[in-house]
């Protein structure tokens, strides 16, 4: 059994006949850690996340989440926020959150408590009776994040979570990510925003053309590859094509 909350060994994912979207990737995440996936468009970040969440089966390697291979048990441990909040749009926000509470088998008291706590945090209590399709992109995203945390999952996976969020909500989400990790859980998220990654991540995984180019703490990255910021180090690693 794995000691890490999330452990990925030699993960490979092939699309179609021979397109290796993810090529022999390995990494792990422990309790209390926030891990950021960074990389250019099409690097394979979302594919890794999809393999972790069970959306896509892997074509090689092993994934272990809370000691379980990808399956029902691992999914019980994961809270997932996709990059696009357009899901179940004709449900009301409350109906959506209640649906997820039932999926994760929360009892009625806990469900109410969590909905109240989380919606207050994002200041979306007022919109609970509204249908998701009547909400703005940012509000939908907040509802999706609330849904992902409804069962207080040990592993929280987010795909481009900051997209469409207003500054206060982005700030609050970053705070929640950190707090979630501090409470003994781990958070993995993909982002293009290097400042955000630098601000909240303990470790960074740089993915390029399906391979892990670098898996290290932000500080070590800066030391090893130079630069004052993560952006500088990143550009040193992958090269600045436009420079």
């Amino acid at each position: 059994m794995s000691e890490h909350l999330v452990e990925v060994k030699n993960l490979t994912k092939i699309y179609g006949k021979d397109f290796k979207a993810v090529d022999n990737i390995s990494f792990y995440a422990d309790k209390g850690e926030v891990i950021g996936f960074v990389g250019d468009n099409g690097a394979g970040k979302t594919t890794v996340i999809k393999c972790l969440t069970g959306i896509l089966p892997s074509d090689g390697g092993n994934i272990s989440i809370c000691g379980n291979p990808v399956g029902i048990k691992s999914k019980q441990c994961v809270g997932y926020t996709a990059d696009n909040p357009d899901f179940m749009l004709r449900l009301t926000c409350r109906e959506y959150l209640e649906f997820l509470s039932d999926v994760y088998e929360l009892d009625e008291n806990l469900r109410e408590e969590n909905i109240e706590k989380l919606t207050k945090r994002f200041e979306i209590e007022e919109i609970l009776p509204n249908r998701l399709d009547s909400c703005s992109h940012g509000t939908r995203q907040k509802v999706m994040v609330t849904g992902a945390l409804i069962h207080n999952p040990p592993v929280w996976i987010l795909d481009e979570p900051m997209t469409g969020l207003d500054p206060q909500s982005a700030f609050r989400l970053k705070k929640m990510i950190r707090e979630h990790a501090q409470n003994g859980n781990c958070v993995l998220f993909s982002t293009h925003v290097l400042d955000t990654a630098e601000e909240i991540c303990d470790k960074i995984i740089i993915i390029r053309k399906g391979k892990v180019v670098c898996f290290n703490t932000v500080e070590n990255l800066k030391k090893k590859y130079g630069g004052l910021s993560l952006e500088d180090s990143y550009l040193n690693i992958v090269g600045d094509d436009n420079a």
Partner: protein
Amino acid sequence: MRKSFGKIRLLTNTLLKNSMAEADPFKYKSLKIVISIIGTTIMVGCAMVVGYFTQILTTAITLLHGSGTEAMQLILYFINIFGAVFGVNVVCGLLYFSMDLSRLLPYPFKPAEIGMSKCIVAYLQESIMEFMVIIGILVGYMLADGFSVLRIIFGICGVVLLPVLPLFYCAFFAILFMSVAKKIHSIKGVNLVSAMCGIVFTLIFVASLLQLEDITTESFIVSLSDGSNIFLTIMQYVFFTVFLLAKAIGEKSILYFLLFIAVHIVMILVLYGLSTVLYADGLTAVLSAGKKHSDSKIKKSRTRTIFSANLNREIKTLLRTPTYITNCILPTLILPVSGIALLISQKGKEFHDFIYTLNAPDTLIFISVIIATALVTAMNSLSASAFTREGNHADLLKYLPIPYKLQIKVKVAVSMIFSLPTAIIGVILLCCAIIPDNIPLMLFCVIASAVTVVATVYLGILFDAMHPKLVWEDELSALRGNMSTFLHMAVSIAVGIVLGILYVLLGKYLSIPVVLAVLLTVTVILVIYCSKKSQKLLEEMIV
């Protein structure tokens, strides 16, 4: 297992709540009421017509054979065939290609639970109209052969369960095929399977007609009653639940009824088992397929006017989307294909002779052309989905620096390009088959057909501007359950009924030039009104 059923129920309820809620709440309450009334009238009307037809056919078979459920069976087989042919698309789409799948997979559902929920959703979405028609058929049969408590109980269960078998076939073969072949990576391949199913069933029915020495209604009824009809014999095996229910109702047999129920329980268990074992495989293959990228060089194109650039975009979208090809473009060929079929079969003369035994035959032909053109133009949904087709990207109607008037002109032009030539060619071919010597009437018919296309297209544009369905997952769901296309079709049917009544009441007194003049006047008014109103609606449209 119990827990699994609980999860299936939870997911089914949620998916149904999500899919059956109004896509875009109505802006005008009166429009909702009108649509509800028209929809109910059409559904009840269809059920009554089918029921009446069943009653007449059952009475005819009873006269020949003493008693018989063959008429009921025949129509129920057609219902099942429609269920299977159209269900292939829906079931495959929901099981393998719907966008919510990648959002459901991260949740702790077993693939079988997702698969079963999707099948139940497909059954409920597809069967509402079927329920009404099956009620009509069963009531028609019982009106001819007598009611009894047992028959009513069996009938109620039959209404609920008869649509299951076609969808079971669709799901069974979809799961089996997708997991074994792993070749179909888009809904395009499924459309082909659906079309092939339709062709096979049509061929079987045609074979049952060709087996008759003389193709007449009488000989067909005799073939049904004496059990020699190939179509009925084959269908009794293919859609065996219809046969079991017919036996149960016809013979008031509890044994057949229990067998009918047992078969459905077995189907559900088989589907659950199959989903457990194979559904994940097929789903994985679809999700891991990736997208094809074209290696061909991009051709440079000339600079175009705003109008032609937009027209080009619309036409390319229509021609490159299989759903639009099958649902919007192919239906425009109904009139030409009918014309060609009539010319090849040389049945035009028989039609001619039959029509000319009726009251005011020229007027009848003229009015029929108007009705057929209106129905085909409305059926193709090209105009009534003009704004709907923009979907999530409808905001481009607003932000592109193109006057709304011009945008409406483009939408009209696209509908005309596909609807007008096919309607005119179709009418010419039909006229050549039925009234080859009557050139003046042919000319009137062609003009009337063209004018009807214009009127119908403008009406469709107006309806879609009033209530576009801009939130949809795939093109099929944009066209299905779309109130604009429904209203367009309903109004066309209503106009057809009014014209039919006018012909029956005033046939002798209706002068073709006068009718054409009225049609022209109405069309001009419609064009002016619909253009202005659609423009205003487009300005106010919230995207």
